């Protein structure tokens, strides 16, 4: 101890402040920072210089020009007369559409399969295992091709569409459903729904209060379901059933009318869901296995039935293990959606790529891509972190 003190003291007095680890750290960081700034400065300067020399136009002004190309599926009004900026919004919305629907489906599938891998039934367990091993080990692009070229492309042509129940049709141009056309007074149904939701909220609140006070339970689930279905239905009847259906019909080339889901979307959505579900299943399985056995034994000892034990004890604890890795799966799914380009689904990358090519503004478009994907990822993480905090153990 003593000798150490002496050495230290000695070094401190003899040599400079450079040997102070704190100051040294600061110096290193400053140097690195300056180098980084110089590097970025050089890159940007060089890029601008090269662009200028090569006479390539730059800046974001091109976003206001007429796009000139059509997009096959769009959630907002769009035509070839729209601007490039609007085309990008169309692409972004398509990316979000496939990401959100994919995440919901993958979560549900992944949860069921993950639980299935722990089922008591041998067959279910094996089926789930085979599913996970297959989809986890195939690159997502191949899964997309499988759905697009392997499944949807081999469906019959529109003329010989497969007729499904409820006047829906399936062919190699997609999935066609009757479209609901709401008539006059349909707003009453919406009112019914809003009222029902408000009542459900009230019922849930009261039921919890009552259980806490008296220990008596109230059949919340059934009452809520009844309200949510019943009230809008009542409103629908009161308004005189203002609903007709537009049924897809055959024309020269294709089915027209009705609600159409394009094969490109279908293939991408199915592929991303199936692929990501395999990973989510493993995460769910790990989560459930991560809850110690004592927890379920204790809940059985308290007299909970196995379903109740799962819902009230196991799953809430498993969630804490599940949510963080789930977040990265959601981010992966969103980023994998950019593989859309391989099958011609007009997502952000596909539309951006077309614009890049028409205008030659590669740097600007690549920057837009990066900023948007970063934004989507950060928002997803933010939401999941919030959710995680909410689900985290609250000690009483």
């Amino acid at each position, binding site marked *: 101890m003593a000798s150490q003190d002496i050495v230290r003291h000695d070094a401190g007095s003899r040599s400079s402040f450079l040997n102070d680890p704190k100051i040294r750290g600061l110096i290193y960081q400053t140097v690195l920072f300056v180098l980084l700034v110089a590097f970025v400065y050089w*890159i*940007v300067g*060089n*890029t601008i*210089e*090269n*662009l200028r*020399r*090569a*006479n*390539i*136009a730059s800046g974001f002004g*091109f976003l206001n020009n007429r796009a*000139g*190309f*059509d*997009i*096959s599926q769009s959630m907002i009004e769009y035509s*070839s007369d729209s601007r490039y900026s609007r085309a990008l919004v169309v692409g972004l919305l398509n990316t979000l559409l496939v990401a959100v629907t994919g995440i919901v489906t993958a979560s549900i599938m992944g949860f069921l399969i993950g639980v299935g891998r722990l089922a008591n039934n041998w067959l279910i367990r094996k089926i789930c295992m085979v599913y996970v091993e297959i989809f986890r080990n195939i690159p997502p*692009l191949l899964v997309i091709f499988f759905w697009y*070229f392997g499944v949807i*492309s*081999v469906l019959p*042509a529109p003329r010989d569409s497969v007729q499904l129940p409820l006047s829906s049709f399936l062919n*190699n*141009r997609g999935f066609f459903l009757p479209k609901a056309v709401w008539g006059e007074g349909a707003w009453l149904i919406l009112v019914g729904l809003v009222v029902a939701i408000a009542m459900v909220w009230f019922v849930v609140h009261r039921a919890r209060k009552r259980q806490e006070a008296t220990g008596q339970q109230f059949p919340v689930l059934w009452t809520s379901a009844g309200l949510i279905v019943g009230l809008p239905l009542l409103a629908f009847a009161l308004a005189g059933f203002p609903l007709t259906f537009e049924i897809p019909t055959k*024309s*020269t*080339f*294709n089915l*027209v009318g009705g609600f159409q889901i394009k*094969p*490109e979307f279908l293939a991408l959505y199915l592929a991303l869901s199936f692929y990501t579900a395999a990973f989510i299943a493993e995460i769910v399985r790990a989560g459930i296995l991560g809850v110690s056995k004592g927890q379920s034994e204790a809940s059985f000892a308290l007299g909970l039935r196995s379903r109740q034990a799962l819902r009230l004890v196991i799953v809430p604890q498993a969630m804490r293990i599940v949510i963080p890795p789930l977040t990265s799966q959601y981010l992966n799914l969103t980023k994998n959606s*950019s*593989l859309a*380009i*391989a*099958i*011609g689904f*007009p997502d952000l*990358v*596909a539309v951006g*790529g*077309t614009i*890049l*090519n*028409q*205008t*030659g503004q*590669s*740097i600007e478009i*690549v920057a837009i891509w990066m900023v948007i994907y970063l934004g989507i990822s950060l928002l997803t993480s933010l939401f999941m972190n919030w959710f995680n905090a909410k689900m985290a153990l609250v000690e009483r």
Partner: protein
Amino acid sequence: MNKTVKVVLGVAALGFAASTASAATLDDVKAKGFVQCGVNTALAGFSAPDDKGDWKGLDVDLCRAVAAAVFGDATKVKFTPTNAKERFTALQSGEIDLLSRNTTWTLSRDTSLGFNFAGVNYYDGQGFMINAKKLPGVNSALQLSGASVCVQSGTTTELNLADYFKANNLEYNPVVFEKLEEVNAAYDAGRCDAYTTDQSGLYSIRLTLAAPDDHIVLPEIISKEPLGPAVRQGDDQWFDIVKWSLYAMVLAEEYGITQANVDEMKNSPNPDIKRILGTEADSKLGTDLGLSNDWVVNIIKAVGNYGESFERNVGQGSPLKIARGLNALWTKGGLQYAMPIR
């Protein structure tokens, strides 16, 4: 995806490249010993590797012609296959010295993309192809209302398509892919009713379909597609070399100079031919261009004149059997007209 990565890399190259990309391309080319030429990935007749892996086609011949002009050796060329989307970044970033890939000469490509087009080696127009077996009775593009149309993204084709249907008040459903193989596969699988691109491309693509004879090309031509080689702006010497290599091939056809008779022609008394072949006494025409005086001889020995290259790759000597049409010499009612070498 990998294409997107390429584009990103191209963009990065713009940032990192020492600021020399647009300096003397000829010196760069001579220093590295070969011409790096951007061509199509696989469009039979224009540029596609044959079964031995040798690149063949009208656009490829132009690359070889430039190599022959620069080095006197047509093998000193390397090919970079590019799809519709990558091609421009590849040229802008300096990855290739020359883009010879059925690329339409348009104003925006000439200006905001920063290119110069060195002439037109194929006058084309956009057309439609349909499966006549599946769609009997359709014999005009105007009957395509409501059809799904397969098209490649990043092409002029995509824009003309939108304009044509709009102008004729027809509805359609674009099905857009990035890669040629994907468009072909989707069309062949019946995802679309029609396929649209340059007519020459349609003929070439038809050969790759499962049952080529079932498909017909509709008569309408909906656009002008002058296809030609492009170089970066800012290097006039290189621009001139590419431009005059193409003109030399066309002029050779006009004066009857062929791969077979070029050596014999060197003794021709015709002053035009003497100038073209650099046999005129004290000729400076080749050296003024930065080349040797026998540059045209080298080109013609390597790839033949324009007509020979045309017939061999896309004309009667090829499976495509495309007629000269607009691409006949101006003296034969076509549009191929080369500026005089003098």
